[in-house]
């Protein structure tokens, strides 16, 4: 029964929501929105579960002086410190969400603006360095696929330049020739020759027809983004959509049960 009841509820709720999707008449038409409101209300209460887990986990580490207990202390201070800031602002203004607390040291919005936002910004800023390191690994022209990725990426970057298309393309040509020579040296003659010839050809074309290169670079970039990139993306999206529908049908019919424990 412990396993059957959730399956029955899932089936009824799933079928009901699917049916109401096609019925605009009230009360069916607004049911989806109403259920979303219920879900967000329930979501608010479930945060208590999370806070309970957080306090228990870090409280235990702190009490037992486990490894890295200092980080647990910082976490708990952060949690209770923010709570205290909210209570103080609430006591003063009747609501913790008072914008005037922005300019008061220790106010709820002060904590948000001067602690939380900079920390979020710091984490987001790390992304730039991570993109560079991931791109370095992905674009190393070790295989044919990686080389294609590298060339496509450089062409897109060159196509988006407002100036300096010729020098940038020449750098690409030199890189291709260098990669080709490297491949020749590590006994991959065909791949190496293709890269070197492509590099020399690209360099010669740019030097011979500089105006055409400046005109064509944005067009090539546009084509790469709107044809191969969009085609691949749509293929993935169709797969994802069909997979989502199949998974939903499996859940509604009770075939997919991995999310329900039998303990």
């Amino acid at each position, binding site marked *: 029964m412990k396993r059957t009841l959730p399956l029955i509820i899932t089936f009824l709720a799933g079928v009901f929501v699917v049916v109401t999707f096609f019925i605009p008449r009230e009360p069916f038409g607004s049911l989806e929105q109403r259920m979303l409101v219920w879900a967000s209300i329930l979501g608010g209460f*479930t945060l208590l579960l999370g806070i309970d887990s957080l306090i228990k986990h870090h409280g235990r580490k702190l009490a037992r002086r486990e490894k890295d207990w200092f980080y647990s202390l910082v976490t708990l201070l952060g949690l209770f410190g923010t709570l205290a800031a909210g209570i103080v602002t609430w006591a003063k203004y009747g609501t913790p969400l008072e914008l005037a607390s922005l300019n008061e040291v220790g106010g709820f919005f002060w904590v948000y603006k001067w602690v939380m936002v900079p920390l*979020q910004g710091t984490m987001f800023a790390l992304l730039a360095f991570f993109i560079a390191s991931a791109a370095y690994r992905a674009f190393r022209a070790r295989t044919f696929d990686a080389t294609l990725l590298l060339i496509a990426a450089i062409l897109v970057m060159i196509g988006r330049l407002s100036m300096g298309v010729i020098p940038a393309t020449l750098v690409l040509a030199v890189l291709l020739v260098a990669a080709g020579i490297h491949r020749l040296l590590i006994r991959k003659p065909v791949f190496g020759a293709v890269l070197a010839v492509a590099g020399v050809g690209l360099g010669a074309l740019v030097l011979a027809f500089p105006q055409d290169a400046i005109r064509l670079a944005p067009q090539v970039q546009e084509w790469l983004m709107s044809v191969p990139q969009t085609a691949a993306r749509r293929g993935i999206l169709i797969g*994802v959509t*069909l*997979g989502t529908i*199949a*998974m939903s049908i499996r859940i509604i019919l009770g*075939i*997919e049960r991995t999310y329900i424990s039998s303990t």
Partner: protein
Amino acid sequence: MVLACLLSVIFTQPVAAMQAEAIQTVALQPVANLEAQDTPNDPGGSIDLSWELSPDSALVKRYEVYRAESTEGPFEKIVEFLIPTTYYTDADTLLRNKKDYYYRVDVVGKLGTRGSSKIAGPAIAKPQWFNTNRLAVLVFALIYGGLVILYIEFAKRDRGMFVRRIAGLDAIDEAVGRSTEMGKPILFSFGIGYLTDVATLAALSILRRVARRAAQYETRILVPNYDPIVMTAAQETVKQAFLEAGRPDLYRESDITFLTADQFGYAAGVDGIMLREKPGTVFLQGVFYAEALILAETAHSVGAIQIAGTNMATQLPFFIAACDYTLIGEELFAASAYLDRDPQLLGSLKSEDMAKIITVAIIAVVSIVGTVGAILASVSGKNEILLSLGEFVNDLFETLKGFLTTS
């Protein structure tokens, strides 16, 4: 000569103004073909109005829409427009279903002259039982639902159904084994999805497999969470998996914790755990946004083998660039069928392939019809046969497009 010019300016300006005034004082021609009808595919309480602009639209200052409950009135102004408008949806909260309403549109000139349209009505607002705009969705859902059930039946009879290899799922056992050999824990992240996300549900089935193997190999598994409900589901899943593996004694609830419901706070927390615990294997399965690469690159920096999977098309390139294995979109949803080899699950997987074939066929047919129509329109010239054929093909294309693009 100069005097003549001055006189002409003095006398012609008032004359022009008088002519304009004369035009303004004559009644304006009203809007034409005013129609009022129930708004289709709605929950009721709404009436659609449409009309054609007045021939004197250049002289019109504003359009006023009036409503009454009988032809005799009284007509009440419900809205006015200062720009030329040809439609309006009356969704006034005072509008009642199954009641007759009459409408009139007045045009008002700059000097207050008016032109009233013929009265349209009676129009009755009614709620509908079926949204015809969603017919294509219903047809596709019925076909797809039918295929799923059909292939599940096939799979029950044919147990040797072929499923292509998915490298990311095949590597799970190897990755867990690696962590065991290195004596390091496994880290599993659902990203910042909720339990209402299908990708999170799919990730739970992978967690179950990973946890079962981890229990068999006596390896610790860490699951930091963004959402408390996902945390509860993950705790239940891991507990169940440890029980199935015959090692419930190894289950530690404190390893499956809530971190924070803030995106970058979560990324910072998981990164911290990675740097302190140095996991041998990291699973990034579920819904990810900008934190995807932050997590993947940190995992790489601590030397962990990474198996990622998401349905977020924008994050897939990051995972492909940074991780050892990536489950691309639908492969994530195929995980439970692939790992459990349950005939019912495999059947639904097979139905996905059939639906994909149908989808591609529809896209191909509509594209070909559209292309042929465009070619015929450009080459037909004065050839009557080609012209009518082109019209037929273009009509067919528009019908198909209209049916498929309703939502």
